[in-house]
């Protein structure tokens, strides 16, 4: 079946195109909308976006593959990024990764057998003062201890998948802001 955005997202897409002096500039935000809906950028999405912005599929693919946050293949319901750059490393990032690998039963770069979590290594996420930390889907979890990390994972596991989570994410964001 050909790709289509939900009516709500379609409205956002139309608004996006008006924000820039050139159509092409809407490429990254449009890819974000698609990935939030579908979980990754499929071949159908590439074709759909290319047609929408009057680009070749090669140009769209070239952009998708340039950026680490766009996935060109399916990933787990939740993506966990462990920051392994220096400041985090000094505060225990390796232990965080080891803990996650044990709990999920997969290595960094892999998806857990039940398909729920993909574990990836990240480069500095601008959270060095609250290291060690992970990003799960769209949110940061900082000043981690093994116990705190387990609690967070329980919560995330009990929630719906990433692409259903925009509302929850806003809620969590604001709750975090109060803390």
């Amino acid at each position, binding site marked *: 079946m050909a790709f289509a955005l939900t009516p709500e997202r379609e409205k956002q897409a139309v608004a996006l195109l008006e924000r820039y002096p050139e159509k092409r500039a809407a490429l990254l935000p449009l890819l974000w909308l698609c990935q939030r809906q579908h979980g990754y950028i499929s071949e159908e999405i590439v074709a759909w976006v290319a047609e929408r912005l009057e680009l070749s599929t090669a140009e769209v693919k070239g952009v998708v593959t340039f950026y680490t946050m766009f996935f060109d293949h399916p990933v787990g319901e939740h993506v966990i990024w462990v920051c392994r*750059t*220096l400041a985090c490393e000094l505060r225990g990032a390796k*232990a965080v990764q080891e803990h996650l690998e044990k709990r999920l039963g997969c290595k960094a770069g892999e998806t857990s057998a039940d398909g729920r979590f993909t574990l990836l290594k990240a480069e500095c*996420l601008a959270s060095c*003062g609250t290291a060690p930390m992970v990003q799960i889907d769209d949110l940061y979890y900082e000043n981690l201890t093994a116990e705190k990390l387990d609690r967070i994972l329980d919560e995330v596991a009990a929630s719906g998948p990433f692409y259903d989570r925009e509302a929850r994410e806003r809620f969590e964001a604001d709750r975090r802001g109060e803390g």
Partner: protein
Amino acid sequence: MGFSTPSPKILTSRYHLEDSFTLPVAMKAGAYAVAREVIGKKSPESIRDEVKKGNLRGRGGAGFPAGVKWGFLNPRPGQQVYLVVNGDESEPGTFKDRTILERDPHRLVEGILISCYAIGAHKAFVYIRGELRFGQLRLEKAIEEARARGFVGPRPFGVDYPIDIVVHSGAGAYICGEETALLNSLEGRRGEPRIKPPFPAVEGAFRQPTIVNNLETIATIPGLVEMGGEAFAALGLVPGDGGTRLYGVSGHVARPGVYEAPAGLPLRELIYELGGGLLDANRQLKAVIPGGSSTPVLRPDRLVKASDPQHPLHAWDGKSEIDVPMAVDLFRALGTMLGTCCATVIDDSVNMVEVTRNLMRFYRHESCGQCTPCREGTGWLVDVLDQIAEGRGKPSDVDLLVEIANNMMGNTICAFADGTAMPLLGMVRQFEEEFRAAVAAGRPLDVRHDTTTRAAFQGGNR
């Protein structure tokens, strides 16, 4: 705690307020008062003058004077000037801009309004790294609130000077912090740096004259304009660097975080007063990366050599490298760079070959690959460091590292390659004995970086 340096709070004056990110709270504490006072009421030139007088050095890494950069604009009739705010914040060790987005986005919006008016722009793009979704949402919400009040839109504060603000999300690529790569990414392309010239002020976003400034630089504008350039410049502790700025401190310190203090704060105060000293008091301070991973490392046990009274560092002759004030020109004279002013503190539990390897892996991952010396050089550096760390290094490998780095410098489209080579050379220069020892040992280094902190993670006593 008595701090030796008094720290007026300007950028962070609203950080502590409950719901500081909402418009009513921010306005009650003064947000938008300066914009209302100057837009349409003062001349754009007079605002640009104040910024020049304020000695505001760009907060994005290079420390270029913002007033001078703004002066490079000279649009031809019919051209549209753009303001682009650089919120890519990806330099390892840097985490300051994020606090503005999350805790006081209205200060940024106000800074954008004043800056647009001052440089003749009607549209601003704020480029934010994709990972900072939370900050993006906060900023988008703030812009919505400001638009609802009419501050952003066709008639800010009732003045016929339309200003529109667009938030643009990146998607994970350090190189997009480089200003021309950022412009390509904004235009929907791969984030590959462009050959300069033309500079953005002549041909930037959508081929129009564009000012690219760091997010903190722009958020500093309301405070600067409010107090006036001279008063702002006088806040700096050394000549040539005005105002207060956000300092970050992370790694092996007791109180990591972001702190506002005057420009020119000595690194020692950042570590021992604001940062609370070392995390593990039984350890020694070994090294400090002063302003993001691209800035060459400093050693507290190295003394400044500047006996010549003409030397810019003469006043610190014989003192520790970490006693030099954190100012753009002084740090350059010291052989390093101020960078983003976010320091990474390293204690003696750590091996510097491993630290170097960690950072060089970052650069290998992030090189955009357009230039051969950078694409190949970053890979070779990691290969050689792997050999050394795994106990298979040769004595000549230390010199090989230096040779590779030297060949990367000055030969590329953008400053990324220099930003890789300089810290590598700094590591080898400052800790050569440790590189030589690793080679001589001939066995895997087998050290972890987290000796000081792993127990805290496991034990959960944080």
